[in-house]
């Protein structure tokens, strides 16, 4: 009987400080036992429990893409006991990863469609995974236009800056990077909140799905913009966060209505969420 | 002392302004006292929470010693007056629950009283040593299912 609580042992191979406030770091992890990589088959939108012996576990969205072989990437905000400890760890140290957990973005539904990605702050992680996955040459043709609106408070708070710059150069993805405000004279992208930039760039709702991830305030103001653009609740896909422990729908705490965020989610359509208590 | 002889672990919470200075002076004066004491400096004896003392015992301290300024000499005017009431109740309740009298000690030592520091340190060490290793309130990995 497989024990779903045992994490795969991994080694930290690289740690990148992402943001100017140094509160977000990206961890690149490699499986200690190479055969575990095969067992850890995932799709963008899923998450995993990062597991540190003696401290505990934290559920974090997978930022790497299944097309990136040999490692996993997680970007972690420093908040509590486990994340603070993780931020003090060094490359070479051993920890655990348990997963992949939860559903993913609805990749079956997304095929043949325009994909609009709207993200704010550090909620960009699983969307990075999704973009990398879609831009993979053998996947790219499965999707029509890819439009990305991604914003952060300041240029220094954007995640994956090099990757963003590389995507900017491509012609098979429409990038709209924005910051709330900046006094950097060399800033060459947008300035304005994500909902406003979304409204301005006005991605079409026709044959499209929108993946929306960000802080509650961004979500709140983005929803009416998307409605105005013609997106129905079925076309708006969101990813929830709740306090979790087991990650496999057993321990009970992430329960909202009939669903467990960890197992039945974290990805839900707005239409599904409208029928559920707003307890997230 | 043979190498195998048990040596008590004693956590001493010393007030920054008086007792810590007393310890310092005792060191400068090369006064002798037993080496069982681990010092934690606190801003004032009034800062002491029962959680700190319990925390020390839970982590296996054989004795705890809290020392502050003499009443009336508190750097914060009255911190140690409040502390005195807290300590009285805490000591009584801990001992009521079975912690042996002699594990938990309190003193007032000024920064000039290096001799008193060494004397009390010796007393505390001897009292704790006489009791042997602590067995109560020590937190181990839970023995559960």
């Amino acid at each position: 009987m497989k024990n779903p609580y045992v994490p795969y042992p991994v080694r930290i191979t690289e740690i990148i400080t992402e943001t100017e406030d140094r509160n977000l770091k990206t961890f690149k992890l490699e499986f200690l036992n190479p055969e575990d990589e095969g067992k850890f088959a995932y799709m963008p939108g899923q998450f995993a429990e990062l597991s540190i012996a003696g401290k505990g576990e934290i559920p974090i969205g997978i930022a790497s893409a299944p097309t990136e072989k040999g490692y996993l990437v997680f970007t972690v905000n420093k908040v509590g006991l486990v994340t603070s400890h993780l931020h003090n760890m060094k490359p070479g140290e051993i920890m655990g990863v348990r997963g992949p957990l939860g559903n993913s973005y609805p990749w079956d539904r997304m095929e043949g469609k325009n994909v609009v990605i709207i993200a704010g702050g550090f909620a960009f992680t699983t969307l990075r995974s999704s973009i990398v996955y879609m831009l993979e040459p053998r996947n790219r043709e499965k999707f029509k236009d890819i439009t990305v609106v991604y914003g952060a408070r300041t240029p220094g708070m954007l995640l994956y800056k090099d990757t963003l710059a590389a995507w900017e150069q491509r012609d098979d993805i429409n990038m709209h990077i924005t910051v709330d405000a900046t006094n950097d004279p060399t800033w060459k992208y947008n300035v304005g909140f994500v909902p406003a930039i979304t409204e301005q760039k006005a991605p079409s709702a026709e044959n499209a799905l929108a993946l929306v991830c960000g802080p509650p305030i961004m979500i709140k103001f983005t929803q009416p913009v998307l409605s105005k653009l013609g997106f129905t609740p079925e076309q708006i896909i969101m990813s929830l966060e709740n306090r979790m422990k087991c990650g496999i729908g057993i321990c009970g705490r992430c329960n909202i209505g009939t669903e467990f965020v960890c197992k039945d989610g974290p990805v839900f359509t707005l239409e599904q969420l409208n029928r559920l208590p707003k307890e997230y | 002392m043979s190498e195998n002889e048990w040596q008590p672990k004693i956590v001493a919470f010393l007030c920054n302004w008086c007792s810590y200075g007393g310890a310092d002076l005792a060191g400068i004066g090369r006064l002798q006292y037993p080496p069982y004491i681990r010092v934690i400096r606190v801003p004032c004896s009034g800062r002491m929470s029962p959680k700190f003392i319990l925390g020390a015992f839970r982590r296996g301290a054989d004795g705890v010693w809290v020392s502050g300024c003499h009443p009336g000499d508190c750097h914060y005017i009255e911190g140690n007056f409040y502390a005195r009431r807290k300590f009285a109740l805490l000591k009584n309740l801990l001992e009521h629950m079975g912690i042996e009298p002699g594990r938990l000690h309190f003193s007032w030592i000024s920064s000039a009283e290096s001799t008193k520091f060494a004397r009390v340190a010796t007393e505390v060490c001897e009292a704790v040593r006489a009791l042997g290793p602590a067995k109560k309130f020590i937190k181990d990995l839970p023995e559960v299912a």
Partner: protein
Amino acid sequence: MLKYADKIRQEARDLLQSGEVDVFVGFRKGTIPMMNEPILIRDARDAEKLHWDSNCGINLANYLTKRKERMGVVAVGCHSRNIVTHIVENQISRDQVVVVGVPCEGMLDRRRIHELAGRREILEVLEEESGIVIRSHDFEQRHNKQDVLQENCAICIHRNPVIWDRLVGEAVKEQDGIDRYEDIRAVEAMAPDARWSFFQQLIEPCIRCYACRNACPLCYCPTCFVDESRPQWVGKSIDPVDTLTFHFLRAYHCAGRCTDCGACERACPVGIKVRRFTKKLEKDILELYGWEAGLSLDERPPLDRYRPDDPEEFIK
């Protein structure tokens, strides 16, 4: 105690009707014998739901904090002392509450009554002038009230409300010649190891449900020490040291504030006499500082004050 019910309803109706209070906190008759449920009413018409008997041992002072309304509340002696404590600790203001005082003759110990009934099914427990009648399918038992009181009530010396705005009956005679600390002295007389075993056994059935803490009006901290993770003061399992740490610190937090209302013991689903912790503190505080909690609106509690000549024989 039944006799007060009508008067309580009348006062509540009056207070709500006149607009003197926005809400009224009292008890409604419970769904099972010897249980009543705290209830909040806003409408004078609901005053008829209010009930009173000797099963109102849950401390209503626990329901008054973090509210904005003007509140009417029923209070016996100990509960009124907790209201005083709340006022002194700035959790509520005096103007915010209208205390409907109830001179108290003590609450029933329902576990004791179940025991007396041989754990057979109890249909109802009737209160009479001098005692109670336990009624079941096939038997009826009478007991003196004194024999079925909660332990804290049997040794209570403050039965009459300390503060009140309206009183529902004449003050009852306070008990005198009461030895409040017999049980504590018995433990004090034991050797340290015996005391340790005593408390180990005492808490052995604890399931860490925190009913004792939560039934207590003194426990209003936004985050309790048991829920803190950095640092984590106490583990979360049923490890006996963690359980004892919880009970020790919980009691200590109540030092100089506890009115021995007994809500903690009443609430405990596994019957632990948690007052064995708090009463030791109560006794020491009385002996060392001459203090009883909640008797005065004008005095600071004992751990919020000092005297230059406080006892310090234990300090080197």
